[in-house]
């Protein structure tokens, strides 16, 4: 399947600093249409489209909205997660740089659909340079009268990977350490300041105006059975053309990394960032979908010259550093795994280490409080499965 620009339709086409150029391209038409409909009807349309969250977890967007809409609360919130911190991800940056208006429109529709009249955009500290552009987009939309029902405020992160996790993100907006919360309750019933809250990724919200304007049926016509629409990928690493590519879901990894990004002699590809799956080079025909591999769309390519143990070791060091520390399985597990991998990278692995890695993985996946700890063992276990020889060669001979 070729590239298809749905989410990115306006990128490089409109002037991101001028709302008029957006309006010329049917901008805010979807919002006007949505505002004429009762909120539940908008929710039903999103539900029918099959849109799933683009931030990694893939939760059905319409269902999330429905829960928040029906939840009791004098105040409700919409949060746009622009804390794109996953290693190897930069598609939200590209979107914000090129089409902030579609995002503002998506948020405005979300507010109407769920009954929220306050929205936050949580922007990562590293993207501070986008703050002015975003503020300008909001101000222009407001001036044009599109935001009468909703106040949108930008909150800036201060440098913490875990704050991309929705419960840590809410704690951060509340002014606290970005630590993960126990769940349930889930945000649609009890979120920001204990009020019903929906949290959507930038890319998820970008899809909303398209769906409202063109209909759930049009959207559902793209993709696989359980993965509708397109996905925006960030491709980096050992490729000739790193960058942002949008493909219909179900397209193969090969199309993305070899045909578009021009990778050669691929040893492995990690899909989904630091906690993503590692796919060996001989499995590039794997489709990109929620049923198979996806995450938030970070695609990092490693050619045949790379040492996979070194790569996994660095990944676990990163996760150990960014663990919020609240729960023991993640805090201790990532440290212990990084320690073992360091031994292997020096050629000093122990026979029993392989068993210990498996035991740590089981505990972390089962008992960690959030996706960071639950998914941290994935690259370790995948590399053990596909590159076991590399580990065996590094066991110390005594």
């Amino acid at each position, binding site marked *: 399947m070729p590239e298809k620009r749905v989410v990115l339709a306006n990128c490089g086409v409109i002037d991101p600093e001028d709302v008029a150029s957006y309006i010329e391209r049917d901008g805010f038409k979807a919002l006007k249409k949505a505002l004429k409909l009762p909120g539940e009807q908008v929710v039903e349309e999103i539900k029918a489209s099959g849109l799933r969250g683009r931030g990694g977890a893939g939760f059905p967007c319409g269902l999330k909205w429905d829960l928040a809409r029906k939840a009791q609360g004098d105040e409700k919130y919409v949060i746009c997660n622009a804390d*794109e*911190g*996953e*290693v*190897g*991800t*930069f598609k*939200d*940056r590209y979107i914000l740089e090129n089409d902030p208006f579609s995002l503002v429109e998506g948020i405005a529709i979300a507010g109407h659909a769920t009954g929220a009249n306050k929205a936050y955009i949580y922007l*990562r*500290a*590293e*993207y*501070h*340079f986008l*703050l002015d552009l975003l*503020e300008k987009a909001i101000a222009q939309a407001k001036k044009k009268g599109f935001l009468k029902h909703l106040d949108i*405020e*930008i*909150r*800036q*992160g*201060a*440098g*913490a*990977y875990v704050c991309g996790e929705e419960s840590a993100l809410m704690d*951060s*907006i*509340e*002014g*606290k*350490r*970005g630590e993960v919360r126990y769940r349930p309750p889930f945000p649609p019933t009890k979120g920001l*300041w204990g009020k019903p809250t929906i949290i959507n990724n930038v890319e998820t919200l970008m899809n909303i105006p398209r769906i409202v304007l063109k209909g759930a049926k049009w959207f559902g016509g793209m993709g696989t059975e359980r993965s509708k629409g397109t996905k925006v990928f*960030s*491709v*980096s*690493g*050992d490729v000739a053309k*790193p*960058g*942002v590519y949008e493909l219909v879901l179900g397209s193969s990894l090969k199309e993305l990394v070899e045909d578009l990004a021009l990778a050669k002699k691929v040893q492995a590809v990690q899909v989904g960032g*630091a906690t993503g799956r590692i796919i060996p080079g001989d499995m590039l025909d794997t489709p990109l979908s929620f049923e198979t591999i996806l995450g938030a769309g970070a695609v*990092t390519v*490693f050619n045949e010259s*790379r040492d996979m143990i070194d*790569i996994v070791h*660095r*990944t676990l060091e*990163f996760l150990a*550093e*960014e663990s919020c520390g609240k729960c023991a399985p993640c805090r201790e597990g990532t440290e212990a795994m990084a320690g073992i991998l360091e031994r292997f990278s020096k050629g000093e692995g122990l026979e029993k280490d392989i068993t210990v890695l498996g035991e740590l993985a089981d505990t972390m996946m089962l008992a960690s409080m959030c996706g960071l700890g639950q998914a941290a063992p994935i690259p370790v276990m995948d590399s053990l499965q596909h590159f076991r020889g590399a580990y065996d060669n590094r066991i110390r001979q005594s």
Partner: protein
Amino acid sequence: MSKIGEGTNPQSQEKRDLLVLLERAQSRSGYLSKRTIAELAESLGLSIGEVYGVASFYSFLSIKPQGRNVIRICKSLPCYLKNAQTIIEGVRKEIGINPGETTADGRFSFELTNCIGACDKAPAMMVNDDVHGDLTPKKISKILQAYK
């Protein structure tokens, strides 16, 4: 640094504004001193521990004095694959300090950071809020000249 929270009346500051207030204090004085932390705790009715807990949690907040300009080189995988080590080495040579240190004249602090979302321009670094990508060791000197 930003307009965020500027409408907040100091008299009616709330606990929920703690992170915003810390970000503002940091942009005013470059770091969060013990005194700043204690004063904020006092005015918000929080313990010093709570404020310190937030101040020390985030990598863009600093509890020790920083240089006028902060260099953050990305050490995450996509940059590592594009030889970020040579950039780290280049900056080290250029300003004569190691990551985690500040130059004696207070002009630069030097840090390593995790993914800054510029992997399509790897290797990349931030100087203050500016992102510089497609780096080579040769480019470093010229880039840093702009930061006084």
